[in-house]
């Protein structure tokens, strides 16, 4: 099942997205070019404060906070993933680099310390940029398996849907050399390019009937047409929300098994 970001995480993402947006807008203004739908940094800051005040006070319902958080997350726009990586990763100024022109992310290569991507003593980390890929992992020059060797030796786990990377039988030790490599070929699979519009059915949903996972649509602004529901396109955050791995239908009582085809179209 995909993990929905806690409210507190979305607030922190908002704090980071504020300055990312400000720098992005300033750079576009300095070097020219079209500023493509960046949410104004002031609006991001306001949305983050609103969510923080609502969450901290205890006066708002869980459903209200989730709905508002989803809206705020959508406002953060293109800065969501960078902000998440800054918060959980090596720190400001060192996001996982993506080669210019697109393609698979670059490998992560670092020495374990108190400030490294996986810190001393840690046993897991989230790598959302690697979702959809398989990864290979080497620690201290020794390639690791995803299978338990059975002799107490270390191995690792990687979930290419949720982006959770885990160390087993040995937490990260200070000074170890780690290399997490994206497997864009071989037995791995790259994030496919999604062609819009496209149609899904209830068979494409998770067993909960409301969750649709597809790494290829993550980051895209979408609208849905649910056959048999009504004659209108459905938009976020009113009818559905974005997750780290796809979308979740938030219409009360919705179950994909009760409806026909769903057309997914990209807005921008």
């Amino acid at each position, binding site marked *: 099942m995909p993990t929905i970001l806690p409210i507190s995480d979305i607030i922190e993402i908002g704090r980071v997205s504020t300055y990312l947006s400000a720098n992005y807008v300033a750079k576009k203004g300095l070097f020219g070019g079209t500023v493509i739908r960046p949410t104004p940094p002031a609006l991001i800051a*306001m949305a983050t404060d*609103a969510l923080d005040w*609502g969450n901290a006070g205890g*006066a708002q319902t869980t459903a*209200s906070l989730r709905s508002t958080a989803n809206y*705020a997350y959508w406002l953060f726009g293109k800065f969501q993933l960078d902000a998440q990586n800054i918060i959980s990763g090596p720190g400001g100024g060192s996001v996982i680099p993506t080669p210019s022109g697109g393609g698979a992310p670059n490998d992560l290569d670092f020495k374990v310390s108190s400030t490294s991507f996986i810190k001393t003593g840690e046993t897991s980390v989230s790598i959302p940029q690697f979702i959809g890929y398989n990864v290979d992992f080497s620690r201290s020059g020794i390639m690791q398996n995803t299978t338990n060797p059975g002799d107490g030796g270390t191995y690792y786990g990687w979930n290419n849907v949720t982006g959770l990377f885990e160390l087993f039988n040995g937490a990260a030790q200070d000074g170890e050399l780690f290399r997490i490599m994206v497997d864009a070929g071989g037995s791995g699979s790259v994030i496919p390019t999604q062609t819009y519009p496209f149609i899904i059915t209830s068979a494409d949903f998770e067993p909960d009937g409301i969750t649709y996972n597809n790494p290829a649509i993550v980051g895209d602004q979408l609208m849905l047409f649910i056959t048999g529901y009504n004659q209108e396109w459905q938009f976020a*955050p009113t009818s559905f929300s974005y997750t780290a791995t796809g979308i979740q239908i938030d219409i009360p009582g919705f179950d994909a098994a009760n409806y026909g085809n769903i057309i997914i179209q990209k807005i921008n």
Partner: protein
Amino acid sequence: MALTSVSFTISQSAVAPAIITATDTSEGTYGTIASRRIFFQTSQGTWLTTSGISSTSAYVEWPLANTTENFQVLEEDQALAITVQWVEADGTVVNTLTQLYCLSEFNRQFFYYLFQQQALSPGIVQDTNYYANLSTYWMNIIGAIQAVEIGADISSSQNCLNRATNMMNEQAKYF
């Protein structure tokens, strides 16, 4: 034995913003101290009590047995100089401590409400008046908080709160 240090914390309920919650975090033993008095002084030089606003110095009794006590004294957001006195049975003041607070939950929760409504109509941010007023409202709340936290200035803080409160009360005009 007596108190080795006096301190207290103040919070404003988001569920019921009219209520101020005070907690005595002093260390040591009370000794001859029999009671506490708490003063809520505004930037205009008036005092808030549970029975209304007083133009002369007025306090609310805070029983010693209650480490934490709720005081329903607010009708709107206020920047206050809050004084607690620890007194003996005959009224002799043993310890006094004054701290400044910006209590802004009325406006903070209304700001959340605005974004909650905005989520239902995301395109409203394209309305120039709405976006400008939203920014002004937010700026006044932030300014009020920072005036106390950084500037220790309840007068400036109250000015910001008053503008924010006016916008909240005239929400049909501004939002």
